[in-house]
C-alpha cells in the first residue's frame, strides 16, 4: 500500500496544501527525507506566492497531482548541512527556487541549464528520484541538495527578495539570452504583475528605455513614478498603440492569460524579438505575415539554471533590486489567491511563513 504523505519520510512537516481543483488551501501534514550527505535543510522564513502556484492549485494546466503544497520562492535559514556540503553552513541565509534536482549528466545540466533538463524535478508537484512527491515552500522547512540551494547575498532583503527566485530569474534569463541588455535600446514589458514589475526594474538597471504595455490604465502612475518605466501603453488605446508600432527592440511578455500577440508583434521594430514567459493554458494565435515582413521572432524561456539564478541574485543585490511585496500570514493565503486571480496585488504576495506557520521544527 502507498504510504500516507505524513509517513513517507522520517521528518514530519506542516504545510498548507490544495486537495482538489477548487484550489482552496488548508493545513496539511506530510513528511520530508532526513538530511542526506549532500543536503541542506532550510527553516523557511518567507515564501513568495507565484501565479504558477495558483494555476497548479486549481489544476489549470491539467497535470496537478493532489494534494499539492505550492511555493517555489523560498527564503530561510540553514539549520543542517550534510557531510559533503561545502557551500553552506548552519545559519546561512539561503533561497530555494523552482528546481530541486535534475539528472546532472545531460548536455543541459552540464551547461548549467538544469531548468531545461528533460528529467528536471520541480520544487513541488514533481517526483523525486526515489519516486516520492515533492512539496513546496508553503511549509515550515525543506530539505534540498546543495546544488539547488542559493546563497542570499548581503543587502538583499529576505522578504522582498524571495520573489526573485522565480519571478526574477524568469525575466532575467531571457533578457540575457535574447540580448535585451544593450543600453539605449527600447524594451516593452507586457503585463505589470509579479514578473512584469521586476522586468521593468531590471530593464532600467540594464540601461534600457522601458515601456509598460498593460490592459489596466490605473497602473500607469505607479509604473512611471515608482517603478521608473519611461512610458506606459494601454492595450485598448488603439491610437497610442498604433503610434508606438515599430518602436521597440524587444518585448518581454509576462501575461499568463490568453491574449492577442498581433498588437505586440506590431510594436516591434525590424528584427524585433517578442519573448513570452507567461504560460496560458491554451495556445496563442500567431500571425505569420508580420513575422515574415519584419524578420521578427517569438521566443520562449522557462526560469533559469542554478548558476544564472545566483548571478541574478547577486546582480539584484548590487543594483538594489527586489520585488514590491505585500506580506501576508499563512492563514490569509486563500484570500490572497482570490486577489491574485484578479491581479489585485502590487506586485507579489509573500507569506511570512516563519511568523505565521506554527512549526514543530
Amino acid at each position, binding site marked *: 500500500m502507498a504510504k500516507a504523505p505524513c509517513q513517507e519520510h522520517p521528518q514530519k512537516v506542516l504545510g498548507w496544501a490544495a486537495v482538489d481543483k477548487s484550489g482552496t488551501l488548508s493545513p496539511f501534514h506530510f513528511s520530508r527525507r532526513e538530511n542526506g550527505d549532500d543536503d541542506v535543510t532550510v527553516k523557511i522564513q518567507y515564501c513568495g506566492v507565484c501565479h504558477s502556484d495558483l494555476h497548479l492549485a486549481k489544476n489549470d494546466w491539467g497535470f496537478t497531482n493532489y494534494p499539492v503544497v505550492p511555493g517555489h520562492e523560498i527564503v530561510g535559514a540553514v539549520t543542517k548541512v550534510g557531510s559533503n556540503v561545502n557551500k553552506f553552513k548552519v545559519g546561512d541565509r539561503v533561497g530555494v527556487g523552482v528546481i530541486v534536482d535534475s539528472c546532472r549528466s545531460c548536455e543541459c545540466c552540464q551547461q548549467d541549464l538544469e531548468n531545461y533538463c528533460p528529467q528536471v524535478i520541480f520544487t513541488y508537484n514533481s517526483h523525486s528520484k526515489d519516486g516520492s512527491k515533492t512539496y513546496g515552500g508553503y511549509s515550515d522547512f525543506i530539505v534540498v541538495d546543495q546544488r539547488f540551494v542559493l546563497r542570499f547575498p548581503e543587502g538583499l532583503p529576505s522578504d522582498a527578495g524571495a520573489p526573485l527566485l522565480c519571478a526574477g530569474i524568469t525575466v532575467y534569463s531571457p533578457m540575457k539570452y535574447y540580448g535585451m541588455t544593450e543600453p539605449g535600446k527600447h524594451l516593452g514589458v507586457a503585463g505589470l504583475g509579479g514578473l512584469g514589475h521586476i522586468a521593468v526594474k531590471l530593464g532600467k538597471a540594464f540601461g534600457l528605455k522601458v515601456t509598460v504595455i498593460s490592459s489596466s490604465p490605473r497602473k500607469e502612475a505607479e509604473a512611471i513614478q515608482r517603478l521608473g518605466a519611461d512610458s506606459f501603453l494601454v492595450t485598448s488605446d488603439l491610437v497610442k498603440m498604433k503610434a508606438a508600432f515599430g518602436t521597440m527592440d524587444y518585448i518581454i511578455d509576462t501575461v499568463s492569460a490568453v491574449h492577442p500577440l498581433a498588437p505586440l508583434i506590431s510594436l516591434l521594430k525590424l528584427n524585433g524579438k517578442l519573448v513570452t*514567459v507567461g504560460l496560458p493554458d491554451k495556445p496563442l*494565435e500567431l500571425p505569420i505575415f508580420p513575422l515574415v515582413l519584419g524578420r521578427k521572432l*517569438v521566443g520562449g524561456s522557462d526560469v533559469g539554471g542554478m548558476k544564472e539564478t545566483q548571478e541574478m541574485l547577486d546582480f539584484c543585490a548590487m543594483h538594489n533590486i527586489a520585488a514590491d511585496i505585500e506580506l501576508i500570514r499563512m492563514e490569509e493565503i486563500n484570500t490572497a489567491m482570490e486577489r491574485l486571480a484578479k491581479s489585485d496585488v502590487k506586485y507579489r504576495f509573500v507569506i511570512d511563513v516563519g511568523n505565521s506557520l506554527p512549526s514543530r521544527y
Partner: protein
Amino acid sequence: MASRMAKSPEQEHPVKAFGWAARDSSGHLSPFKFSRRATGEKDVTFKVLYCGICHSDLHSIKNEWGGAMYPLVPGHEIVGVVTEVGPKVTKFKVGDKVGVGCLVGSCHSCESCANDLENYCPKTIFTYNSKCHDGTMTYGGYSDIMVADEHFVVAIPDSLPLDGVAPLLCAGITVYSPLKHYGLDKPGLHLGVVGLGGLGHMAVKFAKAMGLKVTIISTSPSKKQEAVERLGADSFLVSHDQEQMQSAMGTMDGIIDTVSAVHPLLPLLALVKNDGKLVMVGAPDKPLELPAFPLLMGRKVVGGSLIGGLKETQEMINFASKHNITSDIEVVQMDYVNTAMERLAKADVRYRFVIDIGNSLKSAA
C-alpha cells in the same frame, strides 16, 4: 476644365513592351501590350530570356492577398542579357548576363536600406504590382524586356545556366537569407525543411552545400526517393506518420518552413532541439496556433524572413556559382503558362516552372 485621361499602359512610357498579364482575379493570363521607361542614367535594360514562375505570382494574379492592380504582369525571377546601360552605370555593360528579383526600388535612406536590407524598407517597390516613384505601375518578367536601376540588378556568372538560375532570384534568396541570419549555415548542424517545392528544394541544396545534415518533412511520401537520391537530403519524414515524427523529436537545430497553407506548428516545434529555431518563409494568410509550453520548455523560437537585400542576393548567386547550385526546373513555353499555374496550384512540378521567354514570347504583330 476637361480632366486629363490616364495614359493607357501602352502609352505611359516611350519604349514598347509586350508580356502576358492577368486581367482579373480569375488569374487567367493572356497577351498584353504595355510600355517601359527609356533607359535612365542609372538604368540597365535587358532582353528577358527566362522567367521563373513563383507561387507568389499565382497568389498575386488571383488577388489572394488583396491589393492586386489589374492588368497585372507577374514574374520576379527574371534573367536575360543586357542591351543598354545608362551613362552612370558602372557594374554592367551590354552583353552581360543579369537578373532581377522581387525588388526594383527602395527609399535608399532608411535604416534598412543603409544596412543592405532593401527588402525590409517600408517604401520598397516590388517588381510587379507596385507603384513607381512616378506613379506608374511596375510590370514583371513575363515580358520581353526589363528596365531596372543598376542597384537592383544582379550579375549572373557565366558558369550558371540561365534557365536554372532564374528561380534563385526569389526562391533561392528566400531560403538563403534566413539560413544565414538564424545561424543555420554551419557544418554539422541538422536542418529540417518543411515542404518540398520551389523553396524547399533550394533550401536542401544550399544547406547541403553549407555542410548541414538535412531532413525533409513532407506530406507526400512519393517525394521521398527523389529527395534522398537526387537532392541529397539525408532523411525524409512523412508529417502524418506519428512514429517517424516521434522518433525525430528534439533532433534538429532549426527548421525552414516553406509551407504557405495553414498547418500545425506543434509537431514542428517538437522536432527542434532546445534553443532550436523554426523559421517561417511561407506566409499562411491566417494565424497559426502557438502552444506556449513547448516554446518555453525548450527556449525555442519561431521567426520569419522575407526574401533578402540586393547585396545578399548577389552573395547568394556567387555562392550558388561556386557550388554549382541551380534550381530543378521544368521549362515551358509562354502559352503554357495558364496550364502551368493550374499544375502549380496542385504542387505538380519538380520544382519550379521557368518560362522560356526568349524563344516563346512572340509579340502579336
